[in-house]
């Protein structure tokens, strides 16, 4: 059974968020975003919307260039992983705390 994914038209995204289409292509080329092309129209998968919005904020709100975004994306992934690990370990420790 395959999960159905909603596709979001990149043009619509760019209009709504006031983002240049070249920015999306740059993200794709640097491996930060997957795009889907259907009949010459470029889409992103809905699961990636949150990530794309975040990357757009970093670029347009904070003036961070693509190289900076790549570094930040890598470090944020690491931070998130460490935070998840910490939550798991804290929950494990709670078992001993309550004893």
């Amino acid at each position, binding site marked *: 059974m395959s999960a159905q994914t909603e596709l979001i038209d990149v043009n619509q995204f760019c209009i709504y968020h006031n983002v240049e289409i070249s920015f999306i292509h740059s993200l794709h080329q640097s491996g930060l975003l997957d795009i889907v092309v259907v009949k010459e129209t470029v889409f992103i998968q809905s699961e990636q919307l*949150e990530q794309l919005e975040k990357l757009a904020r*970093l670029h347009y709100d*904070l003036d961070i260039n693509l190289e900076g975004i790549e570094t930040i994306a890598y470090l*944020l992934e690491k931070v998130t992983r460490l935070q998840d690990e910490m939550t798991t370990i804290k*929950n494990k420790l*709670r078992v001993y705390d309550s004893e």
Partner: protein
Amino acid sequence: MDFVDYYKVLEVDKKASTEDIKKAYRKLARKLHPDLNPNDKEAHKKFQQINEANEVLSDPEKRKKYDQYGKDWQHGDQYAQAARSQQRPRNDGGQFNNFSEDDFSDFFSSMFGGSSRSKRQTKFKGQDYNTEIHLSLMDALTTHQQTLTVDGKNIRITIPAGVENGQIIKLKGHGGAGGNGGPAGDLYITFVIANHPIFKRSGNDLNMTVEIDLYTAVLGGEVMVETLNGKVKLKVVPETQNGTKIRLKGKGAPVYKKEGEFGDLYVTYHIKIPTNLTEKQKALFTELSKL
């Protein structure tokens, strides 16, 4: 309601130029932006403060009022009324989108009556969290409750009997807070189930090995077997072979979210050959082998 020193917040001098304020704001925003500080409430709070400070100090009119009234902000109401009547939508640029009206302090609201920004406000979903819950096999086979602490909040969840090792469940809305009224992220919990010394699980079925002595295997007899619901007595038929597998229907693991349904328990007999035989036993075995 306390006075907020916006100059101190932006770490600038009272004589700072608009350009200096802009630079200071950008510098701090790069450090404190919520996207760069996931799950950091302190950074988020500070980010709100610098946004508010920038809103005031980057606007000559607001800055003038702030400088004029400052600590005597309570007397600024009349000024605020007059200012509101002259307000018109504007786009001042440089202020971030993911900051809503609700994020301004009481001090700001009292003095300025709210934000004059008319910029687009993009809602965005909060961060998804991932965590693991480690269970013993017995816990996994019993419906029970557990409390998780995520972001300082306790979440009580019911774990249904029959949860599988590696199974992931999603708790919608229990992840990081959304921005601008956007929905909270989700919490994904992965179950990690430890091995059991007696039962090996295979889906809804359980497997176990039971040792029987040679005489019971040859002549038949009875053996007591541990199950999830206590011990049961099994009849061993004569001439039972090593590795014989028997099925106890409905004595396996409960089927996930299907009350009253259970898998089966498979018992494999391991025949134990006697050791340290006495001379008499050896003689009898020899005699037996010649028959």
